[in-house]
């Protein structure tokens, strides 16, 4: 199973590193990362594998928020995107 981590906000040093290490801290494997500038905001989307993760998604979200407090962070199961955008 996979989940999607999104981090949005003003670009700065170390966002990717801090987010990735928060994932590593909960044993979630990062399988894909995309980043771009969307509507003037830095926007990173990270797909992580959560089968061996040691906590719930909400807890990982808290960890990442603590690591990059300036950014808006969401951690959501991939099913929600698949069901909304795929028939």
């Amino acid at each position: 199973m996979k989940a999607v981590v999104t981090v949005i906000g003003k670009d700065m040093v170390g966002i990717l590193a801090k987010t990735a290490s928060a994932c590593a801290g909960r044993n979630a494997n990062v399988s894909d990362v995309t980043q771009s500038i969307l509507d003037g905001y830095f926007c990173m989307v990270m797909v992580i594998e959560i089968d061996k993760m040691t906590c719930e998604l909400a807890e990982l979200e808290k960890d990442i928020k603590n690591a990059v407090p300036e950014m808006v962070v969401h951690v959501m199961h991939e099913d929600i995107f698949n069901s909304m955008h795929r028939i």
Partner: protein
Amino acid sequence: MLNLADIMETITMIQDENLDIRTITMGISLLDCADTDIDKSCEKVYEKICEKAKDLVSVGEAIERKYGIPIVNKRISVTPISMLVGISGGDPVKYALTLDKAAKTVGVNFIGGFSALVQKGFAAGDKELIESIPRALAETDLVCSSVNIGSTRAGINMDAVALMGEKVKEAAELTKDKNCIGAAKLVVFCNAVEDNPFMAGAFHGVGEADCVINVGVSGPGVVRAALAKLPKDAPLNEVAELIKKTAFKVTRMGQLVGQEASKMLGVPFGIVDLSLAPTPAVGDSVAYILEEIGLEQCGTHGTTAALAMLNDAVKKGGVMASSAVGGLSGAFIPVSEDAGMIAAARSGCLCLEKLEAMTAVCSVGLDMIVIPGDTPASTISAIIADEAAIGMINSKTTAVRVIPAVGQIDGELDFGGLLGSGPIMKLNPKSADTMISRGGRIPAPIQSLKN
């Protein structure tokens, strides 16, 4: 592979446009709890609800954490209690207190089903239950009540209509020190549906399975935001197309959450109710969608046409997104629960006559409307009869949930939370007393002869 734009669209819908799952409602049949001794019957009711719904709230919260989507309410609907009263006799308020206690034990927001179905006549237990509704709503916090007084098949039971006018008034009077909240928990239906997950009208129909999960989605904010991006000169067929696509996405959320809840609770999945349910939060308003379509303010000429198109497009988009669609499924227009409707009612642009016309083309009826506290019961009955007639002739559900502002001449009632607040709306001062006091039945219309 997931696409960046799709991911951002979903997140914006939830974060900025108030997309949420309005309710997960567990329907529980109480038919096997009936006993000739009312105390034994209540005991069985309490035990069954607590057993079936013990994990409902925790599962709802787990799904919120997993998908990052808010689930605003967890609710229970039960078999119309009049059926149990018919067998046990006794004071129906005992059942209301039992339901209230069970709802508090399992931690749900509301429990619906203190109901009677009397569209063709009163059976054992029906009159007793209806007589006890004002007291039941005053003595409980979470119990909701509904009465079905008409249907396309059966016509309108005008004796019940006359009785309900009095009961709505009494429900407000008994709770006048709590903003007349009793009347806000009482709905009078024509063509009531058996799998409605929304309150205050939810009950678990007798044709339903022992226990099911029904889901109600929300999302007026999402539809409005999508329309805001459309150029103002786009033709209405394009507007309808965009509403359809948005409704599809919103409904997919409901389908996903319903399936997940059903799997985690080990209870069959019933239906998704595709309703656009507004909240008093700014932006989460059906009236604003109508204004986005091109009305200066909701309630002006053109409102009925815009609402008809919206309601139809929501259904067309939603129906393909779900394996089973049911409930009320359409746009709701509760005045006090919708920031745009409140504003339109305050400014005088939206009047009761226009609301009545709107109910002919949308999902329910005259909902959450504050009326003067000195309104005669026969006038409330006449309002109910008008709405029921619209429902009966058009083979659709209509309902009346009006709140007489007892003890207040001018001003507003503030219910708080999702129920919102609303100004007192003007009624026609002429009487319908003679017609209402005739009683009897309005016979089933020619539309009922479909076989």
